[in-house]
Structures are given as structure tokens and as C-alpha cells.
């Protein structure tokens, strides 16, 4: 195990910020360009995970376990969010026979 963790010694914190920024932005692009509600949901998961990884990196940087506990809470919240969100998607599919978000435009100005 120590061999593996030796590998991380020397990776600058900036590169973690860069990686998480890119993955977060990929999630944002996914939300913007896809029409399937489930794929939009997966993009949101991608964004949540990017933030989780960055929190862990900062937690290691500052030698403070609070950051990793916070990641644990975010995971619990993500599980709850997925359960409710997928239930809503199933309900939408039952009513409109599709998961296309463009059909749901009744509240659009």
C-alpha cells in the first residue's frame, strides 16, 4: 500500500484542480447538449464526483479528515437525489411516453 501512495508524492495540487475543473465542465456540457433526461442526470453525477475528488485532494493537502467526512455526506445526498430523481423520470415517462426534456416545456415563459 505504501508503494502505491508514494506515487502521489509530488503531483502538484494545481493538477488536481485542473482535472476536476475539466471533468466538472464536461458534466456541464453534457447537461447543455443532451435531451435525454437520464443522460442529463448522469452528467450531474459526473459533476458531483468531480467535486468529491477535489474535496479529498484538499483534505489530504491540509491533513484534515473533515473534508473526507464531507465527501461521505455528499455521497449519501447523491444516493437520495438519484432515488427521487429516477422516480420522477419514471413518472414522466408514464405520462408522456418519453424522457425527452423538450416535451416538458409548459412552464417555459
Amino acid at each position: 500500500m505504501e508503494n502505491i501512495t508514494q506515487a502521489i508524492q509530488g503531483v502538484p495540487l494545481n493538477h488536481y484542480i485542473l482535472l476536476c475543473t475539466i471533468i466538472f465542465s464536461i458534466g456541464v456540457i453534457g447537461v447543455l447538449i443532451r435531451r435525454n433526461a437520464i443522460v442529463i442526470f448522469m452528467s450531474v453525477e459526473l459533476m458531483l464526483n468531480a467535486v468529491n475528488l477535489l474535496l479529498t485532494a484538499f483534505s489530504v493537502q491540509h491533513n484534515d479528515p473533515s473534508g473526507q467526512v464531507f465527501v461521505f455526506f455528499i455521497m449519501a445526498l447523491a444516493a437520495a437525489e438519484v432515488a427521487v430523481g429516477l422516480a420522477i423520470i419514471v413518472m414522466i415517462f408514464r405520462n408522456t411516453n418519453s424522457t425527452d426534456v423538450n416535451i416538458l416545456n409548459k412552464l417555459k415563459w
Partner: protein
Amino acid sequence: MSISLFYFVAFLSIFFALLVIFAKNPVHSVLYLIVTFFTFTVHYILLNAQFLAIVNFIVYMGAIMVLFLFVLMLLNLNEGSMGSKSNLIKMIGVIAGMCLIITLVGSARVLTASEPLVLQTQELGLVKNLGKVLFSKFLLPFEVSSILLLSAMVGAVLLAKKEIKRA
């Protein structure tokens, strides 16, 4: 073992994340997302956050992704029933995302001094250490999150249930 392991895994993360949003078939998207989460698990192991690595592996790759696959299977979306957005909208979306990357990276360059990440204590992310913090300092949030999960469960059941026809 060298520093290049991190860059290799980071490249894989970005590659599969791109495949998630550009795959045509939603089932392929879910499978690529599972691979992306696996690379995140490798990142956690590299940071010696063993508890988070295991939780990520079990909760995300195990539970949440199976939920996604189940819903996709239940909905039975046939391909081609859903058109994609017009190319103009796609271009605008990609350009907006690139602007976001540029803004965030530019601000990060100004703010941080780039110092290498050093693991000061080996047992930072172990279950023993995290459990002590979780059940002393964060006991109230832990209990509140249990209520959150309960309410989410009740909400999901209520939403997904078929409406009962009243006579």
C-alpha cells in the same frame, strides 16, 4: 510506480467522461460512467483515502449505477424515438463549457501557489480515523442524513407508485 500513474488515470477519467456525454445509446453512457467512477476509485486509492475508495466502489458503482440500468431497462427507450438537439445548440453548449473551463483554470492560476501534494500522515483516510471524526464532531449531521435518506425513500416510493383510481 511513478508520478505518471496519476496522469495516466487522469487521462482515462477525462476520456471516459467525454464518452459518457457523447455516446448515442444511453445504456453505453451508463457503462462508460461506471468506468469513469472506477478511475475515480483509483484516484482515491492514490490519495490513500481507502474508506472513500471502498464507499465509492460499493455505493456509486454498485448501487447507483445498477439503479440507472434498472430504470433504463424499465423505460425501454427504443433508439431513434428521441431526436438530438440541433447542431447550433450543441455548438453553443460546447463553447459555453469551454468558457467555463477557461474561467476556472484562469482563476486557479492566479490564486494558488503550485506546491506538490504531500501525504503527511499515512492513516488520514482510514476507516478508524474517519469513524472517530464522524461519530464525534459530525454526529448530528450523520443523524440528519439518516432522516434525509428515509424521506427520500418515502418520496421515491410515493412518486413511482401508480395512482390509485378512486371510485
